[in-house]
């Protein structure tokens, strides 16, 4: 009897041990993960879930169902790719398949109701796909799978940057997220000021500069005849075309940077302190500087994923050419539809811009800067030279942007070339 009691006790002990072990296992499986070094790094809060839901809803609203499904279907594959231990070659192979599907969706599916701002969704989605797909995210510690997945979805479909960027890398996006330091009362005024400044720029670009550019260009092409501006008839058509190109570039810069200012203002108010995307590109003294200071987030992406990655580090010209080639191909994703005129103009713009940057970079390495400031010419001469360089670069970039923007707008190549003919040789 005693033996049976002991056996029963033993059995009970075994049962209790088993139950406790099971309980531990279950608790371990479902317990909240330990909070990481920064409090917000643990688990997505309700606020982030709301943001995620709004972003996904906007995506579904923005695009036709097929296109939205392609993007939504690509996301889990990209997540699996980025968290896998696959080699870069295999990751690139999968990425090419995904990019093929996105490009098919973009140009193979008719979508007449998609506005111009939404044309950029796929283009910026591609940048995010490559950034995460080629990244090393397999060893992220301190987060549950659900949390990591949530953070990925929030980043890849983040509403403010969904349409036209700026392109924040996954690492930068969360490195710059500071909701704990967020004091909404302090942040709301700078954010609102940034948004208001952006809106002012966009209004100026769309309502004033762009119509003015079109009016002046039309007058130049008609030999100075203009319905709204009779006095233009007396102005040299070459000057009119030059002025319209300058206005076109300024309008483009104001519209794009204004939209980015709105995005940055909203993002910063939400706690995502994204960096500036422009650094006075219109005051660049040479095309290399323009390249570095315009659309900085895409430039940064190209540097990390193309420029540094391919070719031997000594072959800088090959690196620059490859980077411009990829950049040109990527910008084709901003087209409404593929046409010879559009592809030719965008391609020509990137070919000229890339060739000028490659030549300047090559020359700077052939003849490194050795002259000290003290032995240079008089400061006034230096300032004059500096101003001249800025004016020349502006004129050069205005000509290149004329090609690029007319390509994006789907205008015939012949019209652009006719305008440039007037610019060089006067009225036709």
């Amino acid at each position, binding site marked *: 009897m005693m033996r049976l009691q002991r056996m029963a006790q033993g059995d009970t002990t075994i049962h209790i041990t088993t139950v406790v072990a099971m309980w531990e296992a279950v608790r371990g499986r479902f317990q909240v993960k330990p909070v990481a070094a920064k409090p917000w790094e643990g688990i997505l809060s309700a606020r982030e879930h709301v943001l995620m839901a709004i972003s996904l809803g906007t995506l579904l609203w923005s695009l036709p169902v097929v296109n939205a499904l392609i993007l939504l279907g690509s996301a889990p594959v990209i997540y699996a790719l980025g968290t896998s231990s696959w080699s870069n070659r295999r990751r690139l192979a999968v990425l090419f398949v995904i990019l093929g599907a996105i490009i098919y969706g973009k140009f193979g599916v008719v979508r007449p109701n998609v506005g111009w701002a939404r044309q950029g969704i796929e283009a910026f989605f591609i940048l995010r796909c490559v950034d995460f797909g080629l990244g090393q995210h397999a060893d992220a510690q301190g987060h549950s799978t659900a949390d990591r997945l949530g953070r990925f979805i929030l980043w890849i479909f983040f509403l403010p940057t969904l349409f036209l960027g700026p392109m924040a890398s996954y690492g930068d996006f969360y490195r710059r997220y500071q909701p704990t330091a967020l004091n909404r009362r302090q942040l709301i005024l700078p954010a609102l000021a940034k948004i208001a400044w952006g809106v002012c720029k966009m209004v100026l670009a769309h309502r004033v500069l762009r119509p003015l550019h079109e009016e002046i260009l039309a007058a130049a092409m008609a030999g100075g005849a203009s319905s709204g501006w009779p006095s233009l008839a007396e102005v040299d058509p070459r000057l009119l075309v030059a002025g319209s190109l300058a206005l076109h570039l300024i309008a483009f810069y104001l519209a794009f940077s204004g939209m980015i200012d709105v995005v940055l203002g909203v993002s910063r108010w939400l706690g995502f302190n994204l960096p500036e995307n422009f650094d006075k590109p219109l005051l660049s003294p040479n095309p290399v500087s323009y390249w570095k200071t315009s659309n900085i987030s895409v430039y*940064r992406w190209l540097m990390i994923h193309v420029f540094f*990655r391919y070719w031997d580090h000594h072959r800088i010209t090959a690196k620059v050419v490859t980077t411009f080639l990829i950049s040109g191909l990527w910008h084709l994703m901003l087209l409404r539809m593929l046409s010879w005129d559009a592809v030719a103009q965008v391609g020509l713009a990137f070919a000229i811009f890339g060739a000028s940057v490659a030549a300047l970079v090559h020359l700077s390495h052939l003849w490194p800067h050795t002259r000290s400031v003290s032995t240079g010419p008089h400061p006034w001469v230096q300032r004059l030279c500096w101003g001249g360089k800025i004016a020349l670069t502006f004129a050069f970039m205005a000509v290149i942007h004329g090609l690029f923007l007319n390509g994006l707008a789907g205008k015939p190549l012949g019209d652009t070339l006719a305008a440039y003919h007037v610019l060089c040789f006067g009225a036709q």
Partner: protein
Amino acid sequence: MQQQLKAYLRETLEAQGRPVADIALDAPLIEEGILDSLLLLDFVVLLERRCGIKIPGEDIVPEHFGSLTAVAIYLRERFGLGDPR
């Protein structure tokens, strides 16, 4: 190692006509505009030449080249070069 890196960086900047007085070891090179992408490439080429190493393109990321300390840590962990202290 970090002092050597500082000398290499100064050499890179001076070669492109951008002399600097002093660079703190923890100064954010890219965010503060000390290095841009083209200068970073020059710095990498100089490092390869002086240290006799080959830095893979995918390793040139802000995490490894964000500051001189980060560069020293990267070179030690990847190539076993120097002591970052």
